[in-house]
């Protein structure tokens, strides 16, 4: 069985590589077909001589033929080198690496909440289907799904941050914090800054998780083997946990794979609103600066995370569902 699993994993990895390759090609194509001059913005800041323009183009490799550009792009991408940021003048890879922890922190917390509270609420809805509780939670999740994250962020920032002064509404830490402050104080400060952006993302994402899990659980509860378990005289709590939950967990794994992009995408708006120094903010800033190397780097990373998430999900499926293992 182990051999089958590792063989399957290898095949899956190859598939992922292929997808990644297409991603890189797509990104390159996207950059080149979009109208406008990559260096236009730099040039518009101050008058620029043709010599300087030529130098800049040479520096960013824009003076070489397309094929050569593509070749060096791919070579670089494989090494993890996406070139130099036009705006910051530093290697893209380094910039991204700096910002990753903040995004992972925010995204990680949101995912955690989703996969505990969200799943629990969704299951609660399913087992209390049709009751007032179910309808109430449905209304809440529908509303949450319809709220734009940036707007909610603004509202929360204003209400909680400015009006009520309960929590900080910008940044990741208090710039006035004593540099010698202890770990506890620094952690508290971090958490305080994390609260609002996390809350915003949670509201928006929980809605989807709840709806999904509710549906999945209802589907599972319809299955005949649930009736069999009851007919055996198994206590209801055990029916729910051992039979319903374990089978309803699979759609949840799929959901995990789908939510991984939240780590990067949902964060773009929220990080912008709260000035949370993560990948999302980096990407948003890069847009304004027309910083293509940076944009491509972040997009490639985001795609990579999504693909990775897919493999992890499939792996989890294989480990949990004996039918998938058999087919592997």
């Amino acid at each position, binding site marked *: 069985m182990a051999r089958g699993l590792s063989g399957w994993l290898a095949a899956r990895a190859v598939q992922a590589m292929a997808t990644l390759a297409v991603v890189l090609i797509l990104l390159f194509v996207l950059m080149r077909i979009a109208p406008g001059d990559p260096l236009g913005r730099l040039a518009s800041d101050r008058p620029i001589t043709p010599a300087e323009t030529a130098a800049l183009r040479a520096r960013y490799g824009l003076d070489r033929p397309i094929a050569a550009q593509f070749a060096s792009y791919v070579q670089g991408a494989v090494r993890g080198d996406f070139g130099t940021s036009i705006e910051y003048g530093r290697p893209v890879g380094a910039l991204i690496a700096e910002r990753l922890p903040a995004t992972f922190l925010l995204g990680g917390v949101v995912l955690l909440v989703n996969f505990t509270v969200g799943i629990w609420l969704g299951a609660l809805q399913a087992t209390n289907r049709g009751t007032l509780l179910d309808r109430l939670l449905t209304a809440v999740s529908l509303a949450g799904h319809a709220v734009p994250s940036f707007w909610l962020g603004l509202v929360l920032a204003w209400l909680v941050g400015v009006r009520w002064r309960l929590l900080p509404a910008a940044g990741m830490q208090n710039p006035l914090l004593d540099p010698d402050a202890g770990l506890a104080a620094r952690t508290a400060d971090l958490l305080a800054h994390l609260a609002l952006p996390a809350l915003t993302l949670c509201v928006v994402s929980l809605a989807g998780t709840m709806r999904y899990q509710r549906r999945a659980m209802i589907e599972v509860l319809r299955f*005949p083997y649930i009736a069999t378990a009851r007919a*055996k005289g198994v206590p209801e709590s055990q029916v729910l946990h051992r039979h319903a939950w374990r089978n309803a967990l699979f759609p949840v794994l799929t959901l995990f794979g789908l939510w991984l992009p939240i780590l990067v995408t949902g964060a773009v708006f929220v990080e912008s609103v709260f000035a949370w120094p993560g990948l999302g903010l980096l990407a948003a800033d890069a847009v304004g600066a027309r910083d293509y190397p940076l944009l491509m780097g972040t997009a490639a990373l985001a795609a990579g995370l999504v693909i990775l998430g897919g493999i992890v999900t499939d792996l989890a499926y294989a480990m949990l569902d004996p039918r998938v293992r058999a087919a592997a």
Partner: protein
Amino acid sequence: MSRVLEVENLRVTFPGAAATRVSPVDGVAFTLDRGETLALVGESGCGKSLTSLSLLRLVPPPGRIEAGSTIRLGDTDVLALEGEALRRIRGRRIGMIFQDPMSSLNPVLRVGDQIAEGIRAHFDVSKREARERAVALLREVDIPDPVSRAEAYPHQLSGGMRQRVMIAIALAAEPEILIADEPTTALDVTVQAQILEVLDRLQAARGMAVLLITHDLGIVAGRADRVAVMYAGQIVEEAATGELFARPSHPYTQGLFGSIPRLSGPVGRLTPISGTVPAPHAWPDGCRFRPRCPIVHPRSQEMPPLLALGAGHRMRCWLANDSDERDKREETRDG
């Protein structure tokens, strides 16, 4: 004879269109004695499965069992049970085999565990002990190499073996009554015979009463002591098996028999029953078989009760009172 099960005036309703309720099971009554086999026969949609689910109070919501129904298990009023008391009769006093073993078994649990679960739900035994009993049960239902088979997942077994596992599960807590809901419908013909043989043997060994639910008259003969024929939520004829096969009297029952191709006897046309089974909201007033009946008694606008035809033989048809009419028809049928 000790009576193990008594069902009277069982009505199960579901919400219909516009706040009405329909009754897919409408006034069903029967009894079961210890060691006897009662076959509940009818086409799909007649309410037989719902009837069996009612006995375990497993009617899926939004369906419910109406007040005025009676289900008595020996001295116990099943409809008055709640919570733990209700759980204790499920599996322990009544066991159930469901129709499709593939979807009736949890795909992510090993079959041995699923049987052991049924044991531990009612007996205070260790996991190991339960496992050993599960293996013993697998052996009883004729599964080869039961020790390693107990580690298998449902999808690794053939259809016949899965059904045997279902039987083992149903018998795990040693119930006095076994409900077999279409136990062979999802199986190949050759496997059907094997499963039925297993059921017969286990019933005899344990002295269980069996409620056999099926649409296949073929498996009823030689196996059931009595037969009740259901149509549109009601029992329309009941009799001892031999009596029913010799003298099917309700036009629906006769239609069922007439639809069976026979290997012996004169070769003639199959006579199917015209029309289709109506859905609960489309049931006519009075006799529900009227739209499809070849005879249509003048009094059939009025719902006939179950009328006696002879010893232990009753039918829901006004023809029961017109013995001349019936004799005439029997002559033409046998001729």
